[in-house]
């Protein structure tokens, strides 16, 4: 009897196949991958980083093949690895600048340590990282291989395309990297980023070498038929060159700053409720619900803003995913969480009116938001007016989507008489006949089991706590 299920998106790497079972992640290894694992598991740096939680907890296990799915058995793996599960999967196009930067630095640090112990990371994809709270974790164990003498760093270009250039885009041009990384699975190419950089940018750290030169050299060599790898090998390419390059890259990335996040944001308080009594009542309401029973396994805070309510939810939850469409907001939340070493809140840049879709080959390689696991409790505070009035999504449709998550719900209805909604309607024709309290309540009752309702002090906002229908 097979209790395992195969990861449909795991097929590109012929050396290992991912499948799930018993709340763990399993990986079948080819003989080649097994040989690399034997080296890796004995390497001091690997165990050190694993103990610190920077590499996902991994061990080799024996599997009674009779229990495995037929497809896995047919692949005749030489051995199996078992990893701890990441609480909630996320992708680089959902991370803030600081998150991508910290993952990049971890990538380079792992590479340096591996080089010192005769190994290397064969690729440098940002998708090899996940998060546990505000801490990056490296998950792609088969990426570690024995260092072949004379071989250059094969992952360098990928590092540029998926880490360095997106970071440059944000730090040097203040252009968000998310749409780009979401749109192109391979990241930004040297000639693309080169065309974006101006003459002034050429003097910024890393641009001349890793962008301009990279672009020129790539065009120069794109049509070569020479075996460059062999030539470099014969000439005596050594890991000294890789180390030098990686150390320089580490310095460049360490010094990258996203200016807007380091300066005071005067518009910060605009997103808070105008009425402070409302806010206090909201805090009490949410806290009551959060502590009303045993710990929630998974909480989603949609439109998390400063993260106040995510933190309240985290008081009695195994894991909270805080989502907001505003990159700067999530960056601030991330820096705050990183400082305070919180382990159970994951901040993500996510536009709730168009959350991440399924992507890649047959939509299998990157999962849509809902496909990664649904919440037990969802907070939807000060969000609905943005969804309906700004994004033009019908009220009924949004509530039905929330119901499809099979979650308990705390939702705030912000009426048209509220100053925030007035602001949204200012430059629009009010075509939102569905947007009123009674219609809202009807939709809610139709899709959920209403447990509690509260009108806030201002009289323009209403809180509801609803459960899954019986």
């Amino acid at each position: 009897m097979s209790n395992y299920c195969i990861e449909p998106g795991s097929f590109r790497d012929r050396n290992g196949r991912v499948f799930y079972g018993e709340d763990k992640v399993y990986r079948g290894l080819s003989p080649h991958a097994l040989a690399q694992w034997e080296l890796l598991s004995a390497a001091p740096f690997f165990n050190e980083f694993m103990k610190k939680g920077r590499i996902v907890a991994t061990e080799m296990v024996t599997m009674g093949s009779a229990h495995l799915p037929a497809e896995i058995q047919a692949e005749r793996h030489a051995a199996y690895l078992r990893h701890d599960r990441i609480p909630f999967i996320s992708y680089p196009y959902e991370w803030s600048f600081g998150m991508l930067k910290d993952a990049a630095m971890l990538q380079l640090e792992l590479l340096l340590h591996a080089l010192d112990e005769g190994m290397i990371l064969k690729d440098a994809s940002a998708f090899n990282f996940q998060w546990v709270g505000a801490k990056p974790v490296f998950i792609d164990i088969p990426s570690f291989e024995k260092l072949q003498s004379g071989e250059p760093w094969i992952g360098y270009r990928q590092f540029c395309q998926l880490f360095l250039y997106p970071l440059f885009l944000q730090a040097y041009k203040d252009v968000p990297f998310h749409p780009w990384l979401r749109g192109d699975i391979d990241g930004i190419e040297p000639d693309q980023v080169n065309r974006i950089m101006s003459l002034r940018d050429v003097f910024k750290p890393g641009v001349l070498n890793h962008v301009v030169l990279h672009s020129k050299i790539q065009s120069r060599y794109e049509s070569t038929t020479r075996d460059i790898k062999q030539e470099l090998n014969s000439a005596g390419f050594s890991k000294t060159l890789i180390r030098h390059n990686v150390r320089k890259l580490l310095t460049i990335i360490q010094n990258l700053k996203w200016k807007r996040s380091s300066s005071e944001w005067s518009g910060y308080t605009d997103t808070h409720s105008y009425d402070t009594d409302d806010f206090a009542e909201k805090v009490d309401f949410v806290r009551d619900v959060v502590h009303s029973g045993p710990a929630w396994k998974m909480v989603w805070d949609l439109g998390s803003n400063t993260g106040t309510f995510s933190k309240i939810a985290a008081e009695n939850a195994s894991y909270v995913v805080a989502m907001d469409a505003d990159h700067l907001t999530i960056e601030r939340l991330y820096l705050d969480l990183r400082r305070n070493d919180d382990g159970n809140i994951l901040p993500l840049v996510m536009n709730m009116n168009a959350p991440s879709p399924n992507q890649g080959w047959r939509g299998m390689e990157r999962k849509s938001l809902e496909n990664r696991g649904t919440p037990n409790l969802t907070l939807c505070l000060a969000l609905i007016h943005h969804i309906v009035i700004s994004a033009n999504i019908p009220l009924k449709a949004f509530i039905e989507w929330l119901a499809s998550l099979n979650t308990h719900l705390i939702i705030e209805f912000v009426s048209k008489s509220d100053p925030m909604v007035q602001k949204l309607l200012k430059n629009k024709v009010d075509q939102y006949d569905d947007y009123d309290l009674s219609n809202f309540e009807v939709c809610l009752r139709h899709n959920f089991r209403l447990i509690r309702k509260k009108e806030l002090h201002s009289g323009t906002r209403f809180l509801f706590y609803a459960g899954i229908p019986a």
Partner: protein
Amino acid sequence: MKKNFNFGCCFVSMMLALLLTQPAYAYLDAGSGSMMLQLLLGGFAGLALIAKLYWEKIRSVFGGKKREDKDGMPQESKETDLTARGDK
């Protein structure tokens, strides 16, 4: 620091000039440039390898147009040129 930066810039321009004088071939090979670039990014060890790989080319850049070995006379005068520069 400024001195290193200036030296770095000169060197880089030199390398650019070197690379752009090479003939282009007709077939696509994506990672080759990225691998070659690592020579430039490899510090002193990288420079040493560049020198090794491109010795003839470097010589011709500094010593004027490269001539055939058969012409004894032009070859000698080339050597004289290098010596003259060295004296300065």
